């Protein structure tokens, strides 16, 4: 009989906490009688198609960009990385809305530049927008595992006569499949739970049905539908868990030194992504800003955003470590880890309401920053867990055993072996949580301290009122602050790399 892994009790507690809001959903749904409406089958098809296309789009954009930002030596390395990760901080409904009004006949682009553009909408349009705002999930998780791959294997393959693309495809790609899968899973769950983007681009998805019920004062119906959505979440989780990965010895990082023109071609190819996801929405807002004038904007909104996001990022990573280790230790731990993912697939407004019920059980915490951070962590824990797990599970366990054999205590082995080798996963996880919290809206509105205003809530306010010009400044700040936050976290990543690669 083997001993229970040490991470299990803590992971169990965290999984239990993550399930609490979901159990509230079941209580809320108990009022409703109708189980499944055949009408929902139609939207189910749309939803699955959107999820599938979003996965494809996020992977097609995310993996090459991860290779580019990780392996290719170029000037302003970190700047490009931050810029390419920034779409994650932009609320996707803002992107969808501005793209809808920029493109198409009579759109802003045609009005201002006279260039006719096709209009965006429907399944394909929604999938494109969704991919643009979720590919950083894939990019950051993939990058974290690329960084801890041993680059000498690629060098060996090339020495043996394999071309670079072939060695990337046959040597690197199979070894990062788990990370790509982890990122794609997050993109899929985001596509499942997002409401604004499909609504604006006129695609009828499951979340829209939930939203209609919720707004028609059918909280129990909305909860019931969210539970049905959890079945899809479970399916996606199952598919992702079948992706296999191996363990890996850490080693020297691979660097590619392309000729300057090759570098510029690569950067040029990645530019459209940034143009569409970041530059276009902000330019449209700037046009409206010039047309309508700015509103009153308070710097404290930006500070609130950054502060809450930072707290949530740190807390999420700290809690993700035991969950990720439990996931590697055994089947029960794997189950606990999977449970923490469910909250991310439920539409924010329903999850927010469930968390209000949970929060009211702790009146001293209700409507405090503390509860808000807890809510963020419960919702976005999977972002951190996925990154930490994928770097941790490729770690060769014999390294820890060797350290123990040489007399290190479990604590010391963790500190000196496991931690440095999984550090990048933690940084990537923290970055994902940070960016996602920056754009989070429903939980912030429902659970934050009364009067607590962030960039995302301010943008929502002016957007709702139709004063789009006022969204320009908070939009710019959102991108700028996310950049700074990422910069700080990535500096930590760099410092660690130096130590590891000294030979």
């Amino acid at each position, binding site marked *: 009989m083997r001993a229970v892994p040490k991470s299990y009790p803590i992971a169990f507690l965290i999984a239990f906490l993550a399930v609490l809001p979901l159990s509230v959903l079941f209580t809320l749904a108990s009022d409703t009688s109708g189980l499944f409406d055949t009408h929902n089958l139609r939207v189910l098809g749309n939803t699955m198609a959107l999820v599938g296309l979003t996965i494809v789009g996020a992977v097609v954009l995310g993996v090459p960009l991860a290779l580019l930002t990780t392996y290719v030596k170029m000037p302003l390395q970190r700047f490009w990385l931050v810029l390419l990760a920034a779409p994650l901080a932009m609320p996707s409904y803002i992107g969808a809305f501005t793209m809808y009004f920029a493109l198409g006949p009579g759109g802003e682009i045609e009005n201002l530049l006279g260039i006719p553009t096709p209009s965006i909408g429907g399944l394909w349009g929604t999938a494109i927008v969704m991919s643009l705002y979720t590919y950083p999930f894939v990019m950051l998780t993939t990058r974290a595992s690329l960084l801890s791959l041993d680059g000498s294997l690629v060098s060996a393959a090339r020495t043996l006569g394999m071309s670079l693309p072939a060695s990337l495809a046959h040597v690197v790609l199979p070894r990062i499949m788990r990370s790509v899968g982890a990122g794609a899973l997050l993109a899929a769950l985001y596509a499942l739970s997002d409401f604004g983007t499909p609504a604006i681009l006129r695609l009828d998805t499951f979340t829209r049905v939930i939203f*209609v019920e919720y707004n028609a004062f059918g*909280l129990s119906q909305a909860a019931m539908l969210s539970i049905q959505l959890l079945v899809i979440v479970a399916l996606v989780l199952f598919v992702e868990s079948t992706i296999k990965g191996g363990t890996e010895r850490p080693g020297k990082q691979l660097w590619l030194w392309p000729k300057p023109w090759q570098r510029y071609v690569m950067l040029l190819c990645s530019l459209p992504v940034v143009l569409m996801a970041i530059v276009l929405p902000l330019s449209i807002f700037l046009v409206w800003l010039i047309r309508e004038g700015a509103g009153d904007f308070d710097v404290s909104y930006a500070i609130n955003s950054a502060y809450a996001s930072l707290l949530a990022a740190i807390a999420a990573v700290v809690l993700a470590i035991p969950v990720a280790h439990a996931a590697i230790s055994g089947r029960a731990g794997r189950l606990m880890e999977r449970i923490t993912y469910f909250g991310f697939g439920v539409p924010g407004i329903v999850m927010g309401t469930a968390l209000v019920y949970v929060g*009211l059980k702790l009146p001293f915490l209700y409507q405090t920053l503390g509860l808000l951070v807890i809510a963020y962590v419960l919702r976005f824990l999977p972002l951190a867990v996925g990154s930490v797990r994928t770097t941790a599970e490729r770690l060769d366990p014999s390294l820890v055993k060797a350290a123990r054999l040489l007399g290190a205590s479990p604590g010391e082995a963790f500190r000196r072996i496991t931690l440095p080798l999984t550090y990048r996963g933690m940084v990537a996880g923290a970055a994902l949580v940070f960016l996602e919290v920056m754009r989070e809206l429903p939980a912030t509105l429902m659970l934050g301290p009364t009067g607590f205003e962030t960039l995302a809530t301010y943008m929502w306010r002016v957007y*709702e009122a139709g004063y789009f010009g*006022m969204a320009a400044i908070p939009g710019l700040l959102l991108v700028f602050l996310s950049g700074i936050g990422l910069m700080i976290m990535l500096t930590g990543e760099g410092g660690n790399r130096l130590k590891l690669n000294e030979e």
Partner: protein
Amino acid sequence: MQRRTFLQSFAAAGALAALPLGMSKSLAAQQDAVSVKDLPALKGDLTLYLGRGEGGLYEKVLDAIRQRNPGLNLQIRRGATAALANTIVAEAQAGVRRADLFWAVDTGSIGMITDAGLAKPLPDDLTAQLQPGFQYPLWSPVTGRVRTLPYNTDRLTADKIPDNIMALADSNLDIGWAPAYASFQSFLTAMRILEGEKATLDWLKGVNKHAKNYAGELGVVMAVERGEVDVGLANHYYTLRLKAGKPDASVDLAFTNADAGCLVNASGILSLTTDELTFNFMRYLLSAEVQAYLSSEAYEIPLVRGIKSPTGLPDLSSLNPPDLDLRKLADLRPTLNLMRKAGVL
């Protein structure tokens, strides 16, 4: 800067002098809107749940009230109306009360709270200020909005648009609508109550044949202006605001007659306590200055007596809205079932 002058004059209580002459006269009558000058100063802690995402103008009103009442500690929680209504119900179930006031964008949320027995009765003098038909014991309308038919002026003239909403189904006009939008669903609920389920279902099916869906009614109005459709179904203020920013916009408003198509709905406020402070705060929102400001700047329809309708909109008395208890509009479920049956949701 009109907005800034409002703030300053309000703070200095000189706003009355800045108001048009006719209005200052009408303020003299007792049952008419009260000036902020005659209202008691607000003192103490007050938490408002504001169920609307409005930036800008509502902010200005709330800021002005804060400035005028330094002793008032006003905390505001914003959110989607239905989300805040659900929060208030959840709080009540847990025996916690954080909100003193709930200001909702639609009467449906108001109905949800009054049905839960959480709203406290209002003083008579407060409800007496409101126009006939808008006086309710448990909540007070703040401003109104009327259902309109915005149409593209390049493609249509007003006489081509039926003045009966039911006739729209048999017309050959391209129609833009936002079926998932709360205001649309309220309008359809009114139609269901006024015309019956069968007629509403037929209407939905008829319009659906030549309608295009949009996420919100601002989107509808913008689509009408862009010429994507001939005519839309939307609240009046989106068109007026669009025209304020773009005076040459090719969109204008048409109205139907005495049916759901020209329903006047309202945003409403209710009190969750019997504290005099919350009632006085409501009195500020119903004051002549605030109502006139919301009318001239936000293009909302003032519902207290003696304040002008916004420019670009016919006076409330010349419109012919249907007679209906607005709280009945909270009964959305049968409406949604009809919409599903017709395949529009």
